[in-house]
């Protein structure tokens, strides 16, 4: 790789971070834990732990055998390690004041407020399917970037 392409790569890698930080919609740590990514990110986005309060994570971790209609059980050691990490990084700000119904991020008042301008039926579009599918529209979701600049709602 020559210097020019290296510089372009670095710029491309760093710019979105700067842009996202500017409007405060970058959540960390979304990708900071490889085990969390692997164990929780196969069926759905590895949701940033800050999106739920500790009480919700505690209940979710204790009930992985019946996890929103799926068996998501893990061995006890992994469950314990991940629970500790989730509780440590759980939401503490304004989002954590409420425990959303069924401990679903998508049922939280802030989530519904943030998405209330979307047209009716948007979640049913084949490319989206579910409000749990963050990455369908939030192109930076895997990196914890939920900034509006990176939203592309598929038709």
């Amino acid at each position: 790789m020559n210097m020019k392409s290296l510089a372009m790569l670095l710029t491309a890698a760093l710019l979105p971070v700067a842009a996202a930080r500017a409007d405060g919609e970058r959540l960390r740590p979304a990708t900071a834990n490889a085990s969390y990514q692997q164990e929780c990110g196969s069926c759905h986005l590895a949701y940033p732990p800050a999106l739920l309060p500790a009480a919700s994570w505690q209940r979710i971790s204790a009930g992985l055998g019946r996890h929103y209609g799926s068996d998501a059980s893990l061995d006890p050691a992994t469950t314990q390690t991940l629970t500790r990490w989730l509780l440590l990084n759980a939401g503490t700000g304004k989002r954590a004041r409420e425990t959303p119904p069924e401990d679903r991020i998508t049922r939280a008042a802030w989530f519904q407020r943030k998405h209330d301008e979307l047209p009716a039926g948007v979640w049913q579009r084949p490319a989206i399917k579910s409000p749990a599918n963050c990455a369908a529209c939030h192109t930076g979701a895997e990196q914890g970037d939920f900034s509006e600049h990176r939203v592309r709602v598929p038709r």
Partner: protein
Amino acid sequence: MQRKTWHLIPMALLALSAGMAGATSAPEQLAALSAQAAAPADAARGQRLFTSKHGAEWSCSSCHGALPTQAGRHASTGKPIAPLAPAFNPERFGDAAKSEKWFRRNCKDVLGRECSAGEKADVLAWLITLKP
């Protein structure tokens, strides 16, 4: 004493690697499952198990697609799922413990119980037959 225990080390390592299920391959896992089932695997039976609903809401295909040579999508979250057939995704069936974990969970979701070694061997035998 020292001489007696020395030769046990390779055997212990072998047992450890078999038991702890480190790096392996799809054909190796198929062989192990078939041995455990004490019967040869049947790919056609595996395909039927994979594509059928077993009295509940989902089949394996609900998330992996009827032909898991391409990406599927999770039936409830919509998240894309990389191809399952090992010829189309070299990361699949490279770790026996991981395969066991997913068979355990997903069989419970689809069949309401864990799959037998024979059933897992059938499914894996079918997945191995899928070639580009």
